């Protein structure tokens, strides 16, 4: 018996007074059941107060308490009671739900004690009741939160991971595992391993930002192989998690798949690029029309006027000759423009396989007279099995243009050589035509080598359309062309045949 018990036992106060004080101040209700005579069951006023009644009226009808206890819980109490009776034990606990006067639920924790008489017969049940509604609600809320957040964490469309400061996974959600084919074994391994190598510096930079500004989210797009080995682009938001001391302890990363967005963006960028090129070509074309047709028509107008005012046969003859030259040039311009329009509009002609070696040799044969006349050494080094898929007429035109240019712009000082070779580069087969001729000052003319009506040398028959048409034709076949050249040191034209389409 401890000190407090001794004090209470020895107190001069009536026992009931202490008992009443304790039960009224510490309990939310008291049950007292007469087990031999079940009608004599009783609840105290505190019980009624706990569920919203004043307890005065209810005290007059002691059996009413049964109506406010959930039947299932009451049955459970009775079952516990029966178990105690059967097992000879005295204590039990049971949570009972009661209906408050305002119809809300009140949860009472009941501690039951069975009292027996001297013969061991059950006589009374005393039940002390504690209101645990707040705890019950808090528990339910906590449970609801937990369910809510676990739903978010494992939801079907967002990746959620956490890493420690070393970049090792400390948490990954189900969706992340499922999509990238991981399991729980990934925890503790480096998150950097599976990121596309080119994107790792970006990732590290974003992590560094989390160290400097952990309170802010930092965005980055990273590529990573999917479980089917396709590469997916994911948009991530990194945020630092700091401990009480303000130190960064973890990084929370939330991400989602933006592959489709990125692909669409790239597609539209490509489309924009194509449109830009087309627009530039169209503009070039419009300027050429304006420039060339206009200059011819201007000349014709002036010449006709001169002709009208001409004095004497000699002047008339001179103007007529000039008039003829002008109309010839106009006709030639129109032929050229027609050729350009054709090259631009026939982009979808069927493509056929052609042996590059055969085609180059065929073109060289057509240029044979010029080659011999100028004693040009031509070296063709193309394996017989190199085949390109082309619009045949375009290939003919490209080869003729580039090879005849190489002859036309040979160096007058040196023995002229032309070297034709091929190599492959990614999806392209590259044809290189290298000469040791005049060369082009690319610093001065680089931007306009392939422009229309651009000529760089004093050459009477230079039309300034050849390279423009060549560029249009190779681009229409999905390829490209570039030039390496130095004034006085010859030129190398590289034609890229796109074999990937």
């Amino acid at each position, binding site marked *: 018996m401890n000190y407090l018990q001794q004090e209470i036992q020895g107190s001069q106060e009536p026992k009931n007074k202490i008992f009443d004080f304790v039960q009224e101040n510490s309990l939310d209700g008291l049950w007292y059941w007469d087990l031999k005579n079940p009608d004599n069951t009783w609840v105290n006023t505190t019980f009624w107060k706990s569920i919203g009644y004043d307890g005065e009226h209810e005290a007059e009808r002691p059996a009413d308490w049964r109506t406010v206890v959930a039947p299932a819980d009451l049955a459970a109490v009775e079952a516990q009671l029966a178990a105690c009776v059967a097992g000879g034990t005295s204590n039990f606990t049971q949570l009972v739900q009661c209906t408050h006067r305002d119809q809300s639920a009140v949860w009472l924790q009941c501690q039951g004690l069975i009292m027996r008489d001297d013969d061991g017969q059950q006589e009374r049940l005393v039940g002390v009741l504690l209101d645990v509604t707040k705890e019950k609600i808090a528990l339910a809320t906590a449970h609801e939160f937990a369910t809510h957040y676990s739903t978010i964490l494992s939801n079907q469309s967002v990746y959620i991971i956490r890493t420690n400061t070393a970049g090792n996974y400390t948490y990954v959600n189900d969706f992340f595992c499922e999509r990238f084919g991981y399991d729980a074994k990934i925890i503790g391994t480096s998150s950097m391993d599976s990121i596309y190598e080119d994107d790792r510096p970006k990732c590290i930079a974003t992590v560094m930002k989390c160290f400097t500004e952990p309170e802010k989210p930092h965005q980055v797009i990273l590529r990573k192989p999917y479980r089917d080995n396709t590469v997916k682009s994911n948009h991530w938001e990194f945020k630092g998690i700091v401990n009480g001391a303000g130190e960064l302890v973890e990084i929370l990363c939330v991400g989602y798949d933006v592959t489709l967005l990125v692909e669409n963006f790239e597609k539209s960028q490509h489309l924009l690029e194509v449109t830009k090129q087309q627009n530039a070509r169209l503009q070039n074309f419009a*300027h050429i029309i*304006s*420039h*060339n047709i*206009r*200059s011819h028509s*201007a*000349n014709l*107008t*002036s*010449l006709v006027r*001169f002709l009208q005012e001409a004095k004497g046969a000699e002047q008339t003859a001179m103007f007529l000759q*000039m008039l003829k*030259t*002008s109309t010839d*040039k106009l006709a030639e311009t129109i032929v050229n423009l027609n050729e350009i329009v054709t090259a631009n509009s026939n982009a979808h002609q069927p493509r056929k396989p052609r042996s590059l070696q055969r085609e180059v040799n065929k073109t060289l044969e057509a240029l044979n007279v010029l080659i011999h006349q100028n004693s040009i050494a031509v070296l063709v080094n193309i394996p017989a099995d190199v085949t390109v898929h082309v619009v045949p007429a375009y290939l003919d035109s490209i080869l003729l243009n580039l090879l005849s240019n190489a002859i036309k712009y040979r160096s007058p000082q040196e023995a002229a050589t032309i070297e034709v070779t091929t190599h492959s580069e990614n999806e392209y087969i590259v044809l290189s035509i290298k000469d040791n001729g005049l060369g082009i000052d690319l610093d*001065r003319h680089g931007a306009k080598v392939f422009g229309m*009506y*651009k*000529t*760089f*040398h*004093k050459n009477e028959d*230079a039309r*300034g359309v050849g390279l423009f048409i060549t560029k249009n034709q190779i681009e229409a076949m999905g390829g490209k062309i570039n030039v390496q050249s130095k004034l006085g040191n010859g030129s190398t034209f590289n034609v890229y045949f796109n074999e990937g389409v």
Partner: protein
Amino acid sequence: MKVFELTYIIEDDLITSTITELILKRNTCFDRVQTFSNGQEAFEELAQIARANAEVPDLILLDLNMPVMDGWEFLDAFSTLGLHKHVDVCVLTSSIDPEDIEKSNTYKDVKGYFSKPLDDDILDKILDLLA
């Protein structure tokens, strides 16, 4: 009225340059005319003049699109010559590209931008501008 004793025509198209020359010669304001088929030829001549302190032209009519050295390159080269006399330059081109017009405004030597064909009306405008 001001008389231009020596005028250069820098123009690659022979017919155009002949016509321009004829129109100038019919006008009493123009005395001698020299033609060059591209910027390089004219530049070499002017460089010679600069060295020899010889006669500098009063006016240059300059085409833009030309092989070897085009009008822009000529203007760049021309500004480095340091001739002892100021020379008026008028761009005379068939280009109606607004970019070309804008670009020509950035050259302080360029007094005006005119579209070919040169006729008496345009010639009057040039004379008014330079008067």
